[in-house]
């Protein structure tokens, strides 16, 4: 026994330093670390207060209804994007798949005279299949998600344009595909069924992430993929499931998009890919995986829409809206870096 060191002889000053009280900044950091949706929630509340001070029309229920309706499509996509980003992946093709699905749904009804329900299911199946392709390329061919979805972004966009032949499709309002645009009034607040669909999507996926083993495994894989594998998690199955859940969210987004556009438009949702990532990042989910909640992404999508809406009401040049969103993204990622550096 050569290396016997008395462990009780830890120098007292160091012990003392280790047990020093946390500074206020460290305490804030620690709280934000435990509650990833908290910092975006604070930003949303502050933004709403500032914009309502600038223009009192901001708080008009009509305006808030508009914000909610405008957020429904990106908000739905952001659910899928969150689940994928939680695995330390990313999906650049998510918007392109949504446009393809929405066009397919509309064309099956308008051109092929299929019942709306079948068209809806066919669109959903295509969205899920497209995401399964992404997921299989990530898990089987072991390509980085960024590269896979950069490629499939072009592929799915091209398929959409080839299929559309440069034409848009419009649907009659009686169709079930248009049901997502129906107005639902809660008091003075005029929402659409699409907004409620989005909220239901958040509830279901939020529940699964928080209360099921699948959710735990998803976080574990995003956190440390090797540790997750050694712990006995089927890492590839979890990764694939993230993309498939993404496909499900896309299907909901496509349905809402059909209602908002009034049919299928190959040129709709052009920026949806990046907007969904923006919402997720502003919502406090870490691009490095393993940290974040879907609720944050809803708040993130709302923050973007509130800024766009509030700046417009304040009569500011639309170019500044884009600039502001850019600043928000960088600020959000900076805060994430700071929060991730937390120590006990």
């Amino acid at each position, binding site marked *: *026994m*050569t*290396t*016997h*060191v*008395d*462990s009780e002889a830890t120098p007292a000053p160091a012990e003392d330093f280790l047990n020093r009280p946390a500074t206020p900044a460290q305490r804030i950091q620690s709280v934000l670390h435990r509650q990833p949706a908290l910092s975006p929630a604070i930003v949303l509340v502050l933004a709403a207060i500032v914009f309502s001070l600038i223009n009192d029309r901001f708080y008009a229920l009509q305006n808030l209804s508009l914000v909610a309706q405008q957020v429904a499509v990106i908000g739905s996509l952001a659910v899928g994007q969150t689940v994928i980003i939680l695995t330390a992946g990313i999906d650049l093709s998510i918007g392109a798949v949504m446009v393809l699905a929405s066009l397919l749904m509309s064309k099956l009804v308008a051109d092929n005279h299929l019942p709306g329900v079948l068209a809806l299911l066919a669109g959903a199946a295509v969205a899920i299949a497209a995401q399964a392709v992404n997921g299989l390329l990530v898990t089987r061919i072991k390509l980085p998600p960024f590269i896979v979805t950069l490629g499939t972004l072009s592929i799915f966009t091209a398929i959409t344009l080839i299929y559309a032949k440069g034409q848009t499709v419009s649907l009659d309002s009686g169709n079930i595909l248009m049901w997502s645009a129906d107005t639902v009034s809660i008091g003075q607040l005029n929402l659409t069924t699409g907004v409620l669909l989005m909220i239901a999507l958040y509830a279901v996926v939020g*529940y*699964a992430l928080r*209360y*099921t*083993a*699948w959710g*735990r*495994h998803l*976080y*574990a894989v995003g*956190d*440390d993929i*090797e*540790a*997750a*594998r*050694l*712990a*006995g*998690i*089927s890492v590839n199955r979890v990764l694939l499931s993230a993309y498939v859940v993404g496909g499900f969210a896309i299907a909901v987004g496509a349905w809402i998009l059909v209602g908002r556009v009034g049919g299928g438009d190959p040129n709709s949702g052009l920026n949806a890919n990046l907007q969904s990532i923006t919402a997720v990042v502003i919502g406090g989910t870490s691009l490095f995986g*393993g*940290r974040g909640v879907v609720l944050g992404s809803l708040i993130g999508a709302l923050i973007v829409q509130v800024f766009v809406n509030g700046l417009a009401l304040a009569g500011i040049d639309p170019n500044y809206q884009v600039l502001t969103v850019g600043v928000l993204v960088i600020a959000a990622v900076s805060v994430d870096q700071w929060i991730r550096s*937390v*120590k*006990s």
Partner: protein
Amino acid sequence: MTTPTAPVLEAKGLVKVFGRVVGLNDVDLTLHPGEVLAVIGDNGAGKSTLIKCLSGALVPDRGSILVDGSEVNFKRPQDAREAGIETVYQTLAVAPALDIASNLFLAREIRRKGVLGSVFRMLDTGEMKRQASDHIKRLGISTLQNINQAVETLSGGQRQSVAVARAGAFGGRVVILDEPTAALGVRETGQVLKLVRDLRDQGLGIILISHNMPNVFDVADRIHIQRLGGCAGVITPQSHSMEDAVAIMTGAKKLVPEAG
């Protein structure tokens, strides 16, 4: 102290190559229930490769593995776990953002009873926390106080205690420990070694990979020496001294008759 019972785990003629590098070259290993078998060897001697084959993290190219006398074919760590072989890795295989209880039950979560569990797949977090704190108490790991603490807020030694607790709590037949004390202080090392003895006394077979000769000679019943991908011999703390073990490990001395 070798018990004359049937081996709980046996490996015969294991071979594993990585490209042109030979990781394991025809290695045999026998482990009985209720014994601590230490595996020692220089860096690159094949210690980690050997235990990864036994724990399902690697699939050997040749050779067979037997659990309780019947041949098994581990394709992934889950297979080994189902056969009752738990492993603690050198690399602290815990998920940093999850709390201690979630880590203990990672990949074997308990669901709620009734419809909530079967249809809604809801986890029984209360039950998992209760069992986790029972396990930790039973194993006498005093450094882990708050079961709700995220693992990333723990020290390296505490993280390793979580991993050891997980293996100890669920190991049915065999617990494999790969350098479990490399990141620990003397006091924490003592706790882990005590835990190793406790697990042995419960009748588990323990494989301990370590660089620390005093630790090895302290707890091991037999010592398997790896050298250049092969087994250079099996000794016991009684039959050989620490100096002998190091000499065999480095090739300065050859073990002629096989002991143990």
